[in-house]
């Protein structure tokens, strides 16, 4: 019963928040709603016993992602109302229908594979974090490492793109300008 109440409560909250996030014209509202929705989602994770995920969700989304977005928002100066020209309303209508159809599909055909045994069964007697750690560093070691590479890539990408490197086009600059630029850089490095 508690589960049901919690589920419906959070479901309502997440849906509301996300709905606000995609419909409001105030960027700040959107951001706030999104952050709230993310946190509410973590609640589901906790309900489902995926504590580790819940923690990660809060840390990564509410912490890192939202911080980034907030930074971006300030940078882009989109705190004021965002005017968006709207396309036709049929889009939303169409998508709603699509969603409805999907829902019907899912309701009308309840999961049959209830008895499927997982590859990495959740054990009763261990904490979720421990178990996740166990699996992550055995079976999912490679994806984990690749994810590390991916984050590195993202980092480099962020630096390259957002840093000063893209400010000037070396393609179009003359040789002399580049030389001057280089000298300045070395100067800066020394100072």
């Amino acid at each position, binding site marked *: 019963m508690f589960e049901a109440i919690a589920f419906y409560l959070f479901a309502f909250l997440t849906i509301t928040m996300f709905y606000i996030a995609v419909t409001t014209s105030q960027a700040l509202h959107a951001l706030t709603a999104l952050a709230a929705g993310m946190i509410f989602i973590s609640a589901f994770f906790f309900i489902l016993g995926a504590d580790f995920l819940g923690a990660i969700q809060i840390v990564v*989304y509410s912490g890192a992602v939202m911080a980034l977005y907030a930074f971006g928002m300030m940078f882009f100066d989109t705190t004021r109302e965002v005017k968006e020209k709207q396309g036709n309303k049929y889009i939303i209508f169409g998508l709603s229908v699509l969603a409805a159809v999907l829902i019907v599909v899912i309701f009308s055909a309840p999961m049959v594979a209830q008895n499927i045994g997982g590859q990495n069964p959740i054990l009763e007697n261990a904490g979720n974090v421990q178990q996740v750690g166990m699996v992550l560093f055995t079976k999912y070691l490679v994806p984990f490492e690749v994810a590390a590479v991916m984050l590195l890539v993202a980092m480099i990408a962020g630096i390259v793109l957002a840093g000063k490197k893209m400010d000037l086009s070396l393609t179009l600059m003359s040789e002399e300008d580049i030389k001057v630029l280089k000298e300045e850089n070395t100067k800066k490095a020394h100072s």
Partner: protein
Amino acid sequence: MEIGLNHYLVLSVILFAIGLIGVMRRKNLLMLFFATEILLNSVNIAFAAISHYYNDLAGQMFAFFVIAIAASEVAVGLGLLIVWHKKHNNINLDEMSTMRG
């Protein structure tokens, strides 16, 4: 009133649809990115739920990596937006149609 897997799936679908709506109607790129986050998050709920009901950790793993991917995407996406903003002083995607045909 037992909450079953299907409930979560429906929730996931609803959220996914909301995300899609966001993707469709947003013209501000930053806010469009919000919507893509919603997409990924909605799937995460389903993964966690399936994982729970199947008693299988793989779903949680998937969700974990999805979160990681989402975070990386934010970094790159913001980087791109910053570059664009520096050059054009806007992040409106209607402005972004020099190539067509």
